[in-house]
């Protein structure tokens, strides 16, 4: 194994650094506390959603319902959690448990996760519409305060990203259970032979995804102060892209929580960067796609060297 293949984290770090340098070069005023806060403001919910997606990809599945799920969590936060905190918390807890059940069912019946989550995306979306037929609701005050807090030295979004990365790194890479969970993605059969219950592990991975999905929805409401049923639909694809940008693989349990958070930051920054470029709005989405392709092309260097 050579250096680059062993340190896959270099790719997301370098791409974020390059993009950040380019942004500062074009708009030097962004190089400040408030500038950074504006640049990365929306990164917190995206980073949490990316971590959620990573939990699913870690066990070799893929979640096409994440965007709808985050929207639903946001709708619950903006209505129940604000009006009746206890009921709201119970609903959010039930959502996490239903994710765990989903993981267990997918494993027990050997269902294709891509299709089950596809079906679930309709269910989550329908429930969200049911709770909040038209955009509205309000953010609980404590959540609003938490999301707009101004810590010293670095803006809230950056601090939060570091905390998320550190916590998930400890949980997934450092802890014993995290290693076993990654083992499910690597070789489920050998994990089972070693005496673990794979169905419980899968349920745990899905429950963690549900937890981070709920957190993403709450963070989003804290920032936007209201919700609607379609608020986070694009998170499904963003989160998948974030995991891959961060050096994760679709199979084999090869994931990197730190990389995933950095991938999410890169995706958020790409959007801000393009608006600084004064690019015509027509081309902004396309340029985002181009940046995505460009960064992923860099993976080739890691791949080929690793194979050689």
């Amino acid at each position, binding site marked *: 194994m050579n250096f680059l293949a062993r340190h896959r984290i270099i790719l997301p770090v370098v791409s974020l650094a390059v993009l950040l340098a380019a942004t500062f070069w074009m708009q030097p005023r962004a190089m400040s506390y408030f500038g950074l806060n504006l640049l990365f403001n929306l990164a917190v919910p995206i980073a949490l959603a990316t971590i959620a997606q990573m939990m699913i990809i870690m066990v070799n599945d893929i979640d096409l319902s994440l965007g709808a799920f985050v929207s639903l969590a946001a709708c619950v936060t903006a209505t129940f959690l604000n009006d009746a905190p206890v009921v709201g918390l119970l609903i959010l807890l039930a959502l996490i448990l239903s994710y765990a059940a989903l993981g267990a069912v997918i494993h027990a*019946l050997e*269902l294709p996760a891509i299709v089950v989550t596809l079906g679930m995306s309709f269910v989550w979306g329908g429930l969200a*519409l049911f709770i909040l037929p038209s955009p509205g609701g309000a953010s609980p005050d404590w959540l609003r305060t938490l999301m707009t807090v101004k810590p010293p030295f670095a803006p809230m979004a950056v601090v939060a990203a570091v905390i998320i990365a550190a916590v998930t790194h400890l949980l997934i890479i450092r802890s014993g259970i995290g290693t076993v969970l990654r083992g499910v993605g690597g070789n489920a059969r050998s994990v089972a032979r070693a005496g673990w219950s794979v169905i419980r592990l899968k349920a745990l991975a899905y429950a963690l995804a549900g937890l981070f999905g709920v957190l993403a929805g709450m963070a989003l409401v804290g920032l936007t102060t209201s919700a609607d049923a379609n608020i986070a639909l694009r998170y499904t694809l963003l989160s998948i892209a974030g995991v891959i940008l961060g050096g994760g693989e679709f199979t084999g349990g090869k994931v990197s929580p730190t990389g995933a958070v950095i991938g999410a930051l890169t995706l958020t920054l790409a959007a801000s960067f393009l608006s600084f470029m004064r690019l015509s709005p*027509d081309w902004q*989405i396309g340029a985002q796609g181009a940046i*995505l392709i460009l960064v992923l092309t860099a993976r080739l260097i890691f791949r080929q060297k690793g194979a050689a």
Partner: protein
Amino acid sequence: MSLLSKPWLWSWVAAAVAFSLTLGLTSGRGAGELAYAALSFGAFAAIVGLGQMLVITLGPGNVDLSIPATMTLSATLALKAMGSDPNTAMLGLVIALAVGLGAGLANYALIFLLRLPPIIATLAASLVYQSLAIWSNRGLRIKPPEGLADFSTGRFLGLPNVAWVGLVLAIVVWVVLERSVWGRWLLATGQDLRVARLAGVPVELVRATTYTSVAVFASLAGYLLASFSGGAALNMGQEYLLMSIAVVVIGGTSIAGGYSNVPGVWGAALFMFLVVSMLNSYGAGAGVRNVLTGTIIIAIVIAASTRRART
């Protein structure tokens, strides 16, 4: 027993149940109209579903997420070129299919040259296609030429013309899969890529032609849909992303690849339309409708998997 073990049967049964439940409410009135509408709208889902089926047959991880963007882009460019002039329908069709061809080749280039996972490659490419469509559309709503609009909303021998297009396409795909060398190559590749390559199947050629076909199918669907609904809109393809995957899986094609199922795609396409109209006629709101649609999709997948386990 041999009939019961056909994977395509279940989507047709489900479609028939949804059909009769809807009619149960009206005590049989409007059966013809409902069937006609299901065939018209189902045709678009069936055409993109057939393309998605070919890609999914390639094996795990193969799925085309750029279908909506390809549909929108080809429809936009085709309608722009035709500019509502009569007798330009052929020109529009050629342009739409050429756009599809280009998009398919571009997708495959990303997958092959950059070694990207197909999900990410088609996702990133779809953002670029979407931008191209936004740039060339600019909010204009160009009407399709009259003859073309008449064709796409018209009927022949009692069936909608778009359904005929979908049916012919389905038969062609079926024959190609079952009878041609290319079809056998595709199935072999989907069952085991390594084994197929070692057996001398030109695996990369198969992948290239598959990704090109799905984009061409999507562009055809986009062209017909824009003519059918009186113009191209930027969000016209949106619902076909999930729809294309759903009809393939409900239709009994294996998500693990290597086994396709053409009749099931049509059954599932009809079912997806009928279930929505059934829930509508029972007065379900948008929220309830979505929840039930999702539950039904999952129930069908579970039913299909337990049936497979028993045999």
